[in-house]
Each structure stands twice: as structure tokens, then as C-alpha cells.
């Protein structure tokens, strides 16, 4: 493999990491409050509100059921508005974020729902406000599970980012298609696949480690 190819692999890896990390961070930023709202407005929860819960749930489900490739094309005008262009690594971050946000919202919702209702009740009995319950009980108590969920979302973003690459976004997926597939460079194809596998493994391992560190229910 030529030095040039190695350089291109490295650059593509950098682009993939950039897309995945930024969109994962943004999606978590947006998905977190959505997940919290979905949880606390649910039946019997601290801020039960049927209307908000139902409508937000519907929006989240609608976004989640749109395949990424369609979503990406459909929101090109929005992408242009935000980034100024619909092509390129930065432009890919917009659809990636939009597709990952509802996913993360649901993941956070299910993590928060795992918090023992008794603990929430104990906080209420001490006079905690809903905001204090969210910040001091729900989020810290479920952080280990949220981290695993975000890890899962990042891995799925690695997959989506390869697709985004195919539409001119750069990254490892783009490289694999342009060189590995269209120019029949089998070694490039193999190299990108290996890099992707290692990347996924790495993300999963780091996620597991952080989660285990945060999980205080299992320490002995």
C-alpha cells in the first residue's frame, strides 16, 4: 500500500471521527432534554403531562422511522441553511445529528425509567423540586446506563457516517466506495473495513469501561 494511500486512510479516519464525535455530542445535547421530558411527563411520573408526552413521542417516532439516507436527502435545504453547503464532512453532521437525536432521546428515556421509583419518592419526601429530582436523582442514578446508550448511538453513527460519506461527506465510507469499490483496490477496501471494526470495538470498550466505572450498584 502506498504512502499516499496510508495518508488518505488516516485523513478519512480523522473525518469519520470528526463526524461521529461532533454529531454524537450534539445529538446527546439535544436528546438529553428530550429524553428527560419524555420521562417526567410520562404516566405517574413527577411532571405527568399527557399532551406534551404524546406529541413529543410522536415527533420522536416519526424521525426515528425515517431511514437515514432519505432523511439526509430530505433535509438538504436545512443543511444548506445551517452549514452553507450540502456537501462535505461538516454538512454531514446535520443529518447525522438529526437522525441520532431521537434515538438518544429514547435511550435516555429508557435509562431514566430504570431509576427505582422508591428513590424518587424518597427525594420527594425530602422536599426536592422536580428540577432537583432530575439533576440530582434521575440523571446521576442512570448515568451508567445512559453512557451505554450513547455508546450504542455512536456505533450506529459510525455506520450512518459511512453512508453520509457516499454522498460526498468524506470519511472512511467515502474512501471505501471511491477507491475500494469503484477503482477495485481490494487492499483499500480491506483496510477501511478493518479500521471500522477496530473503531467500533474501541468505542464499545471505552463505553463499557466508563459505564462500569459509573455503576456503583455492582461494586463490592
Amino acid at each position, binding site marked *: 500500500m502506498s504512502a499516499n494511500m496510508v495518508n488518505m486512510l488516516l485523513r478519512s479516519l480523522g473525518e469519520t471521527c470528526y463526524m461521529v464525535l461532533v454529531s454524537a455530542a450534539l445529538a446527546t445535547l439535544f436528546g438529553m432534554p428530550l429524553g428527560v421530558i419524555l420521562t417526567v411527563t410520562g404516566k405517574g411520573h413527577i411532571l405527568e403531562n399527557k399532551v406534551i408526552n404524546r406529541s413529543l413521542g410522536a415527533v420522536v417516532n416519526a424521525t426515528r422511522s425515517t431511514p437515514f439516507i432519505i432523511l439526509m436527502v430530505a433535509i438538504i435545504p436545512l443543511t444548506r441553511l445551517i452549514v452553507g453547503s450540502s456537501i462535505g464532512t461538516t454538512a454531514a453532521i446535520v443529518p447525522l445529528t438529526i437522525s441520532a437525536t431521537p434515538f438518544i432521546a429514547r435511550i435516555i428515556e429508557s435509562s431514566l425509567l430504570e431509576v*427505582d421509583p*422508591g*428513590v424518587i*419518592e*424518597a*427525594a*420527594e*419526601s*425530602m*422536599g*426536592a*423540586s422536580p428540577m*432537583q429530582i432530575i439533576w*440530582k*436523582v434521575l440523571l*446521576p*442514578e442512570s*448515568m451508567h446506563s445512559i453512557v451505554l446508550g450513547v455508546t450504542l448511538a455512536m456505533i450506529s453513527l459510525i455506520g450512518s457516517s459511512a453512508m453520509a460519506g457516499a454522498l460526498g461527506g468524506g470519511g472512511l465510507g467515502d474512501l471505501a466506495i471511491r477507491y475500494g469499490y469503484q477503482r477495485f483496490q481490494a487492499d483499500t477496501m480491506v483496510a477501511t473495513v478493518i479500521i471500522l471494526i477496530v473503531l467500533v470495538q474501541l468505542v464499545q470498550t471505552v463505553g463499557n469501561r466508563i459505564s462500569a466505572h*459509573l455503576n*456503583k*450498584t*455492582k*461494586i*463490592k
Partner: protein
Amino acid sequence: MIELQHINKVYHSNTGDLQALTDINLSIGEGEIFGIIGLSGAGKSTLVRCINMLETPTSGTVLVDGQDMTKMSPSQLRKARQNIGMIFQHFNLLSSRTVYGNIAFPLEIQGKSGDEIKKKVDSLLELVGLTDRRDHYPSQLSGGQKQRVGIARALASDPKVLLCDEATSALDPQTTESILELLRDINKRLNITIVMITHQMNVVKEICDHVAVIEAGRIIEEGSLYEVFTNPKNPTTKEFVASTRTDIVPDLVKQMSLHKPYKPGDKALVRLHFLGDSAGEPVIAVLIKKYNVDVNILSGNVETLQNIPYGTLLIGMDADEQHMKDAMDYLRSLSLQIEVIGYVS
């Protein structure tokens, strides 16, 4: 300190309405340890949760320290709840916080400064004897230790009232004993009013001054521990009291076919309750000497209720008809209580 007036609670659900509490009236004095005992599903948890409004009564008034809890805005209620500590059967500690962090939690909620929190938490750790477990997580503690953390946490905001919902039900007898001791100690030291919910009569007997028995959402009996224990009126109460007896009627006696009423020539099986000052009567000697009764002592027990001695004695009595009648009249004339369990021919 706590006044419950005409409390009703109805749960509405798809399967229909359920009247969990019916016209509950209770008055709990300052510094008292008040027991509420009942079988599973009687409405104990519902009742205690109505005191701090975790459950809103359908109707009725809840006064805590003179304030009507049912008429408060959410923020007033949060403030009022800081005066009412609560401990739970399953402890409900934050698993992501250490012992220290758990006890600090209510203080953080009140926006106390770091210094203040540290001072308070350290003194509470001392009070419950967990100073050496300060940095442990709940998963590293035994049930008894977790409940101690729960107690320290409930006391952090210097509440006037402590609500305990089955606080010892998940613990073994020895640990239960030590937790009850801690609660008694806290009650004495801080003059805090304690409401103990339980289905274990032993717990009530151990520490309560006053007891109310709840059945199917109604208070069926209420009084000082001494009254209720020595003279239970309701069948359910009698059963609870019987459940704590250590002089269980020996199996052998059970196998005899006991009957009532008395037929001439029968032997009698009688339980005598010696209360307070009657404990000094030489009853057995009088029965034997004066009434010519053969007395057979089957079992006996002396304990204290609220620091008053209380003894029970299970005896078999054998005498001819006239002497038996006279002896029974004599026993009934005394200030002790007698319970004729049955006769054997």
C-alpha cells in the same frame, strides 16, 4: 403534633374505585412513638403517605405541627416536608452516592453550604455509628447499615416528625432490635415524634407508646400500648397481641380437646395477666391453700411494656365443682385479668 381528621382515600382505576382509607381520625402527640399496625393491604402505607402528602387524601384534613398539609401550594409543601423525615422498608438510598453523599442529599436540596453540610453529616454519621463507612456505596452495606443511612438522611434536616414505613420489615430480628434501639434513642434525645408503620406486633411492643390498629382502611382500635396489649378488644387486635406471646399454649395442651362451658369435674386451663401493681399478689398460694385447687404451672413470662412490668402465667387448675367456682370468682375479683382458655374433662 399530627392530627388526622376524617381522612378518606379512594384510588380510582380502570377496574373500579377502591376505598383504601375510611374516616381516619388520629391525634399523635409531640415526642410520642405512635405505632400503626395492620395486616398487608390494610392501608398502612396509604395512611402514612397521607401525612406527608406523597398521597393526597380524597377528603379530610392533615395537620402537622399546626399546618394544614392539604391546603399547601407545591412550594409550601416542599418546605413543610423538610420538617418530616421518612424512612422506608427498602431504604431507597441513591446508589450512585456514598453514605456521606446520601446523608448530604437533603441538605444540598435545601441549598446549605458545604461547611454546614459537612459538619451536620459528620455528626449524623456518629449518631448512627457509621463514621467508618462514610465513603462506602450502598451496595457495599448490609441491610441494617443501609437503614442507618436512611435514618441519618431523614434526620439531616432536623425534622420534628419521623415517618417509618415498615422500617424493619426487611431486616433480621437482631438487626431489627438494633434499629429499634436507635430509633428509641433518637426519640429520647431529640424529642422527635415517630410514626411507626408495621405488621409486626413485636416492633410495636418494643418501642411504641401508643398504638392504633388498622383493618380494611379503618382504625378498629386505639390506645396506649399498655391498654391495647393487656386488654385488646377487637379480634384482630387480640390476634396481634397473641402473636407476640412467648407462652404459646404448649402443643400437648393443644392436643387435648378443650371445651367450654365448664362441666363438673373438668380441669381448667387459664391464662393470668399480671398488670402493674397486681404483680405482687400471691395468687397461686391462695388458690392452693384457700381454695384447695391443684395448680399446675404450664408456662410463665414477665416483660415490661412502657416500663411497666407485665406478667403472664398459664396454669392448669383442678378442683371439685364448688372450689373451682369459688376460685374463679376469687381470680375475677382481683385486679389482674384472667382468660379461661378452656376446660378438659
